[in-house]
């Protein structure tokens, strides 16, 4: 296709959330060895079992090599050049309320259009804001406490609920799982812990806004969500980041555990800094996300809208162990400029009557490079397992790439597996039709792309869906044509 200038404009839109917040940081010098691991553990005042857990992971990490199978290019990462701990300075006892939070931080949220107060007032969303590596603001604790829901930073959970942490941490993503998850286990800074007791429907949507801030600091988040039998929780994760010069490594681990009849809905909008037009300075996002449907009739649903990062390496997955368990993956990923994304999911059907759905919508513009990589495995005990996969790619411009690499492994005769994939561009006919009805080319592309992604947006909670659509339009703004 001959891409019109308008398309180029949209692809070339500046990163809207690119600004740096001036906050003093308490940061470890770059480098990684056992002492650094101990120092992280010590600063967080962790009990001995956590220190040992981290060291074990670190020692294993030394035996591993970085994965090279993903379809992404980047210079080798110098893990000794990264600082593994950075905490914003704060009053001695930490903030008791939002009034005590560093005003610069609050201002940052306001710039992003997500002021915490408004969130509280408007959406009834509890916000555990992670600024760099340490939680600095947590709201709605009381309401959640009444329901028996635990929603706190993982550092806090290590102290307050060591038994739960011991039982579940690393039980879905063991430190041996992969290179980045192993590194995370050794050096994770902070993250979120959610525990929904038996039979409880979490009274509000839980949300965390991530930002990466301190210069040259790797960010190693760790999230653990446990949904006891018959419980329900919807968790929202949204990310933006200030503009930066150097590549930043982000290697988060998210573990979800759903017991009998429990349901976890995990939604992500990711808009990290993608780098400049030459691809310099963007975030490297190497994330391990996995949900374990341990219980019968449990359900884990991943929804993601990925528009940011220079490199995304991410496969939110489901282990469908329990009978009748359900796994879902809905994804919109946009790559433009020099962005590279290798993303997808794994649906591992272990128990009988397990079902999974995969809907992946990839949009590649400019010189964007995108790969859907997915695995559907139906094991020998997974009688009557069902999977439906739909992978669609939309190409905008003639320099971009869209790859589809599905792996399908079936070992049970009663399995029903359907996989469909298409690759296409926005047709001139579609564009012309819209323009003949008076829409600008930009609006027309935005409308068509939003239509292309509708199935995924429908899965997002209302407020998030609006934000995601806006983000998509912004991402393609000037790229539209």
């Amino acid at each position, binding site marked *: *296709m001959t891409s019109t200038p308008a398309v180029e404009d949209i692809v070339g839109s500046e990163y809207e959330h690119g600004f740096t917040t001036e906050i003093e940081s308490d940061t470890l010098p770059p480098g990684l060895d056992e002492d650094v691991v101990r120092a992280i553990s010590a600063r967080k005042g962790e009990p001995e079992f956590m220190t040992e857990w981290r060291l074990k992971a670190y020692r294993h990490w030394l035996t591993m090599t970085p994965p090279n199978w993903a379809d992404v290019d980047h210079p080798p990462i110098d893990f000794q050049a990264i600082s593994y701990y950075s905490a914003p300075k704060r009053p001695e006892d930490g903030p008791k309320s939002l009034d005590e939070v560093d005003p610069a931080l609050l201002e940052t949220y306001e710039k992003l259009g997500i002021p915490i107060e408004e969130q509280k007032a408007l959406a009834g969303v509890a916000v555990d804001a992670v600024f760099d590596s340490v939680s600095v603001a947590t709201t709605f604790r009381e309401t959640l406490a009444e329901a028996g829901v635990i929603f706190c930073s993982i550092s806090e959970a290590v102290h307050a609920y060591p038994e739960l942490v011991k039982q579940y941490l690393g039980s879905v993503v063991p430190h041996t799982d992969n290179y980045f998850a192993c590194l995370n286990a050794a050096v994770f800074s902070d993250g979120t812990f959610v525990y929904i007791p038996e039979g409880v429907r979490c009274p509000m949507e839980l949300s965390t806004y991530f930002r990466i801030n301190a210069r040259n600091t790797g960010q190693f988040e760790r999230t653990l969500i446990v949904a006891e039998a018959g419980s329900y929780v919807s968790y929202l994760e949204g990310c933006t980041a200030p503009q930066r010069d150097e590549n930043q490594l982000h290697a988060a681990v998210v573990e979800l555990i759903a017991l009998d009849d429990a349901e976890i809905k995990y939604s992500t909008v990711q808009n990290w800094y993608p780098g400049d037009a030459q691809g310099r300075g963007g975030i490297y996002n190497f994330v391990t996300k996995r949900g374990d449907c341990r219980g019968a009739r449990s359900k884990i649903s991943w929804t993601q809208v990925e528009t940011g990062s220079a490199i995304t390496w991410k496969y939110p997955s489901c282990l469908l162990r329990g009978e009748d368990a359900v796994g879902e993956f809905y994804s919109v990923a946009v790559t433009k400029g020099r962005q590279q994304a290798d993303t997808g999911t794994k649906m591992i059907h272990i128990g009988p009557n397990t079902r999974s759905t995969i809907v992946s919508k990839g949009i590649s513009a400019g010189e964007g490079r995108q790969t859907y990589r997915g695995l559907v495995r139906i094991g020998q005990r997974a009688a009557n397992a069902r999977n439906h996969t739909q992978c669609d790619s939309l190409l905008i411009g003639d320099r971009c790439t869209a790859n589809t690499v*599905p792996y399908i492994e*079936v070992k049970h005769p009663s399995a029903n597996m359907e996989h469909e994939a298409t690759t296409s561009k926005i047709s001139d006919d579609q564009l012309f039709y819209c323009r003949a009805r008076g829409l600008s080319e930009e609006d027309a592309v935005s409308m068509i792309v939003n239509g292309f992604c509708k199935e995924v947006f429908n899965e997002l909670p209302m407020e998030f869906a609006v934000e995601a659509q806006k983000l998509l339009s912004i991402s393609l703004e000037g790229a539209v044509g």
Partner: protein
Amino acid sequence: MSGELATWLGAATPNGSPAWLEAWRTSARERATALGVPGSKQEAWRYTNPRRLFEQAFDEGAAVLAAEALAPLLVEGLEADRVVLVNGRYAPEHGRLGALPEGVRIDSLARLLAEDPEAVRPHLGALADDPAALFPALNAAGGADGLVVLLAPGARLERPLELLHVTTGERPTLAQPRHLIVLGEGAEARLVERYVGAEPSIAHATNAVLEIDLAAEARLDHERIQHDSAESFHLSTLYLHQQARSRYQGLNIGLGGRWARTDINTRFAGPGAECVLHGLYLSGDGQLIDYHLDVDHAVPDCTSVELFKGILYGQGRAVFDGRVFVAQDAQRTDAAMSNRNLMLSERAEIDTKPQLEINADDVKCSHGTTVGQIDPQMLFYLRARGIPEASARRMLCLGFAEEIIGRLGDEALRAEIAALVGDRLEAAPLD
């Protein structure tokens, strides 16, 4: 490493061979030795471990087959010219070639290399150029013979040409034929390539390489029936090169062998060309059947269709790995890949990996994969008409296969394959 490859690397090139041939073989031998036996860590061999091939001793085997042993291997009613290879060697005594029209050359590779090497020099190894592929390198180093079909521009084969490949012997033999099929501009042919084994219980091995070069507007219909004996190992690697507006129609039937792997690499070199790859595989007890397709849309305005259907029963395993690659400027590419599997037993396994790699935006590319069972509604319909369950199941399996079998070029072949599939299903425990 070269120890386990020794049989495959074969003997030294015969004295008196041209220097270029000697050099080609030597370089293949070195490449194969350097590559070594691939393991399952290598993506191309993820689901198909070739190690067991190298744990077996093979003889070279004599190119001898009694006339009465040939008869049962023929397809009744197939109206075709025929050339026969026995253990990878041209066996003219079994052939049936009429007078060849002007511009058509059909001959043994070994004979041409000895008597008219310049005739094959431009084609030998010209397309089989993947430096990472072990088996084509072994074939180049250790293979000695094969079929050469050269059609001058505008030439046409009046009758289909059957290439019958027989493995035979009381001890396991290794055959490594290489076939060169070169069609000049506007030339047309139909080739029926069949692999059969004379003894069902001997684990013979075949490592065939085909290089098919289609000039502009040439047309080849190519039916490939792999019906090797039950214990055998079958490897075949096809390299296809298509110039502008040429048309290739390939139909692959995979029935035999204990361990069978077929690689098909196609590359478009001129616009407006079309490549159709159809396939049917039936994998039963202890069998592994693997098809790897690599379709390279290097230039604009080409069309490819890939449709492979599989039936798995007993402890049968199958692998389908298809890749469609669209190069950056290959605009207006139209590619549709599809893999459909019918799984009939608890112990069967299918691993399928249909990939698209798209670097151009004005394309129409899709792929679809299904794994499923016999539709209970269809089964009920047949039973409600009085047909017993087992027959009804077989009928539906044959119906599933019919979409591919029905595309075979003549009735004799269709009947033969339908009967083979039917017999296999008859004997299969359809649990």
